[in-house]
Structure formats: structure tokens, C-alpha cells
């Protein structure tokens, strides 16, 4: 495997880690808030939710270390311009576009749900944060992985 394919593979793995660990970490916090707000706490939820938050937070720290490591590798590589070429820019724009549309859809959904159920601003913000950060990253990594498999 050449240097470019290796760096692209590492970038995809790192991006999946970033998106998933953030969703698990913040999703756990979100579940905790909902459980407390609704009074749905059980022995099981008291065990599972902090565990998910811990796993997600540790995964997020690992993802940040992977990101720093990747940035330093990319900085040292002469292939940086190759990896961030035109198709990369197009995929990035597509991922942002899909992320933006999803975010608008979730905001609309939250506004509709707000008419029926009371929830706090902090719950809404957390949902938007998870969607706004994880969706574009996951879309970008998925497009890249699918294309890399197709090109192989």
C-alpha cells in the first residue's frame, strides 16, 4: 500500500472514531439529562449511562490523539496536496451539505416535538451538537470509504 492510500485509510479510521466517540459521549450525557428530567432512572440506566459517557469520553480523547498524530504525519508528508485534492474538496462540500440539511430537518423535528413534549434547551442543544458534528464527519468518511473500495 502506498503512502497516499495509507494516509487516506488512517484519515477515514480517525474520522469514524471522532464521529462515533463524540456521539456516544454526548448521547450518554443526553440520555442522562432525559432520564433525570423525566424521572425514568432505574438501576440499569444508572449503570449503563455513566458507562456509555465514560467510554465515549475515553474514545473522544483517543480520537483527539489520533487526530494530532495524523496531522503531524500529514505535515511531514510531501503528499499533503495529493490527499487534499479536488475530489477531497468536493466530498467535503457534499458532506457539509448533507450535514446542513440533516441539521435543518432535526431543528424542524425538535420544533414539532416541542409542541407535544416539554424539554430543556440544553437537551435540544445537545441533540443539535451531536447531529451537527457527527453527521458531516460520518458522511465524509463513508463517501471516502465507498469510493476507495470502488477505486481499488
Amino acid at each position, binding site marked *: 500500500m502506498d503512502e497516499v492510500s495509507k494516509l487516506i485509510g488512517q484519515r477515514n479510521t480517525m474520522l469514524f472514531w471522532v464521529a462515533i466517540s463524540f456521539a456516544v459521549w454526548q448521547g450518554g450525557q443526553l440520555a442522562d439529562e432525559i432520564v433525570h428530567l423525566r424521572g425514568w432512572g432505574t438501576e440499569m440506566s444508572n449503570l449503563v449511562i455513566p458507562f456509555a459517557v465514560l467510554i465515549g469520553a475515553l474514545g473522544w480523547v483517543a480520537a483527539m490523539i489520533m487526530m494530532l498524530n495524523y496531522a503531524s504525519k500529514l505535515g511531514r508528508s510531501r503528499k499533503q496536496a495529493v490527499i487534499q485534492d*479536488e475530489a477531497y474538496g468536493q466530498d467535503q462540500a457534499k458532506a457539509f451539505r448533507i450535514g446542513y440539511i440533516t441539521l435543518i430537518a432535526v431543528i424542524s423535528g425538535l420544533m414539532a416535538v416541542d409542541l407535544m413534549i416539554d424539554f430543556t434547551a440544553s437537551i435540544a442543544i445537545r441533540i443539535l451538537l451531536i447531529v451537527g458534528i457527527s453527521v458531516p464527519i460520518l458522511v465524509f468518511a463513508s463517501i471516502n470509504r465507498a469510493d476507495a473500495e470502488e*477505486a481499488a
Partner: protein
Amino acid sequence: MNPHILNNRIKELRARNNLTQAQLAEAVGVTRKTINTVENRVFIPSTVLALKLAKALDVSVEELFSLKEE
């Protein structure tokens, strides 16, 4: 919808020059995936990339790319 399709002869000219997608990608400074997507008409390259591809394949841009109306 764009009524035009950008046809290209990259595959044919690559074969004539005995170049793989990876070698052509290396020559023009992009990823193999970019060459693959241009070749399969998924991605429309910029003028700069089109010129680089034409130079690497030793033809003019007009010989490499052409517009086909749907």
C-alpha cells in the same frame, strides 16, 4: 440539471501510454480515487487538472475531453 456530459478518453489514452490509474495520479499530483472518478465521469475536474491530465497523456485538452449533449 446540467444537460451536458463531459466525455473523456482517459482510460483509452492511459492504456496507450501504459499507465495505471495510480501512475497517472502520481504524475498529476492527485489521488487514484480522483483519477477513477474523473475517468468514470463522476467528477468534473478543474481546468488546471484537465490541463495536467492532458499534458501527462501527451494530448490536447480537446482531445482528452469533449462535451456530449444528453
